């Protein structure tokens, strides 16, 4: 995974840095593949969720980090993805692996459609509108009219798939590897997207919308596209999450989820691909840590973490790492020159 944002060029290229990055990436990938065989089933399940969140966060980052459109309602797309998977598997017997692309495609369309009216909203107002979406979603899911499909307040239970081809893997292990493969795929696609023309257009629109359109970028199309793509990612994540947790119910998708996703990308690092992974670790494990710090009010600790991050590390974990790395390199090269 490259840590280079599309517009900022790295200051000291050199073959060694790239090779370092690729090596690190390879090591990470190998470690990730080995993981389910080294830890318990429960831990593997937790890491599956980390991957799921990472996909969702990458999607949200495309919209909010790279394109500057704030969304406090992405939990809604996650919920749609989850329910699509659950309904297809439970009511229609669709195999689990097919539900993922279907969820993604549906969310792509829904996201794009939502992106159209959102074109006219900025900053706080977009946050407010998406916030309203996020709050309303559980109510919609509980609606009596849709109960036949959604299972109403009870929700839907689904079965975790077994490993195929008779492989000697537990369902948790197989699901982890399946999710890992999809995660890698989504990240590679995302990386290419951001490095390319689309990514540059998105960032240009974020930083100087008027200049961007004056240069001939169709801001409306790209902004709606960003919404659609980010919703697709989140929908894919939602479907994978539903399969992992084996259960969907309206109260799993309350506004807290949307809030968690947004905080995830800000903490992890806006407009960065590794940030999605850091953020995923944060939202999966920090509530547990907060719980340990204070059994009584874990979310208060979480909230304090959030505010603290905004004061101390506004660029997120990824930003802090890059800053630290740059400082280290500066010091090393200064030492070399100074002798």
């Amino acid at each position, binding site marked *: 995974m490259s840590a280079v944002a599309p517009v900022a060029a790295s200051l000291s290229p050199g073959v060694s840095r790239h090779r370092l990055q690729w090596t690190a990436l390879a090591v990470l990938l190998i470690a990730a593949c080995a993981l389910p065989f080294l830890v318990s089933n429960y831990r593997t399940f937790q890491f599956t969720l980390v991957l799921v969140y990472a996909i969702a966060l990458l999607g949200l980052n495309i919209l909010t980090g790279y394109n500057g459109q*704030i969304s406090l309602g992405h939990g809604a797309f996650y919920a749609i993805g989850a329910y699509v998977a659950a309904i297809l598997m439970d009511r229609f017997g669709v195999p689990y692996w097919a539900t993922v692309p279907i969820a993604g495609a549906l969310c792509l369309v829904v996201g794009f459609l939502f992106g159209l009216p959102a074109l006219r909203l900025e900053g706080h107002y977009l*946050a407010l509108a998406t916030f309203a979406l996020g709050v*309303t979603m559980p109510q919609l899911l509980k609606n*009596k009219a849709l109960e036949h499909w959604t299972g109403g307040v009870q929700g839907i239970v689904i079965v975790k798939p077994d490993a195929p081809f008779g492989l000697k893997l537990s369902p948790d292990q197989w699901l982890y590897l399946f999710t890992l493969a999809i995660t890698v795929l989504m990240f590679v696609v995302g990386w290419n997207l951001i490095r390319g023309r689309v990514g540059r257009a998105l960032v240009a629109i974020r930083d100087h919308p008027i200049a961007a359109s004056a240069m001939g970028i169709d801001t409306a199309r790209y902004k709606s596209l960003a919404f659609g793509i980010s919703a697709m990612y989140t929908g894919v994540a939602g479907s994978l999450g539903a399969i992992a947790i084996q259960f969907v119910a309206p109260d799993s998708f309350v506004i807290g989820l949307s809030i968690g996703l947004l905080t995830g990308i800000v903490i992890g690092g806006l407009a960065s691909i590794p940030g999605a992974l850091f953020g995923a670790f944060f939202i999966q494990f920090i509530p547990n840590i907060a719980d340990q710090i204070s059994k009584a009010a874990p979310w*208060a600790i979480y909230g*304090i973490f959030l505010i603290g991050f905004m004061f101390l590390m506004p660029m997120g974990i990824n930003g802090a790492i890059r800053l630290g790395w740059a400082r280290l390199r500066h010091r090393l090269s200064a030492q070399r020159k100074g002798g």
Partner: protein
Amino acid sequence: MEAFLHQLLGGLATGGIYASVALALVMIHQATHLLNFAQGEMAMFSTYIAWALINAGVPYWAAFFLTIAFAFLLGLAIQHFLMRNLRSTSVLQLVIVFIGLIVIFNSVAGWIFTYTIKDFPSPFPKGYLFGQKYLSPHELGAIGVTMVVLTLLWAFFRFTSLGLAMRAAAQNPVSSRLVGIRVAWMLALGWGLAAAIGAVAGMMVAPIVYLDPNMMAGILLYAFAAALIGGIDSPGGAVVGGFLVGVLENLLGAYVVGNELKLGVALVLIIGVLLVKPSGLFGSVQVTRV
């Protein structure tokens, strides 16, 4: 016809509460150009303080005013110690800070007071007044209290020199400094007042919806809708918007979408206003220069 009137008048009662919270939102927006997403949780927390006081034996109205004082100080503190130091951060980071506040208030309230739903007393006598059956005494009282608060606020801003200074500081901080107004204090006062209004709203609504940490979330959404409909920079508009939204919520909930989707009404209103007429009914159109 009876049912309709019932919904209409009940809508006015809740509308008064939305109007108060919407006014608090507009006040903070005017002064800081921020939407205070944490307004609802602050109000909820203040209401719990009132509950604790009443439970400890403090008479209602004493607890009422003590809570207002507490809320005032709370709002002041948040602006002075937290928001003031965040001036140079981006919109997104500010939203995260608000989220942090929401989460902290919600969680601390749940921790100190538990998540079980509580009764909150109403200071108004039982038994329907004036021989009518449409508005309970509490609903009538809530409307009354709302009107008193709004009138006092209006008079404060219109006739006192401090109110004038606060209006000036919100509109034009640079010029305000040039006439000697301490703008930072004015912002803190604004936050304090907004928090106090929120506390009143919370204490008026708690007897109706029962006290629990998630009490204000839906109300906040309606209040945002109201503030937007009225015009985010128009205090009068916020008040009108509040009553409008209260009535709409009840009527649409009763006759069109059903009670479960009432919150969906807020969503549609918010998005609708932002798309069709972002300056609201009474606000002014903002022109941004390139």
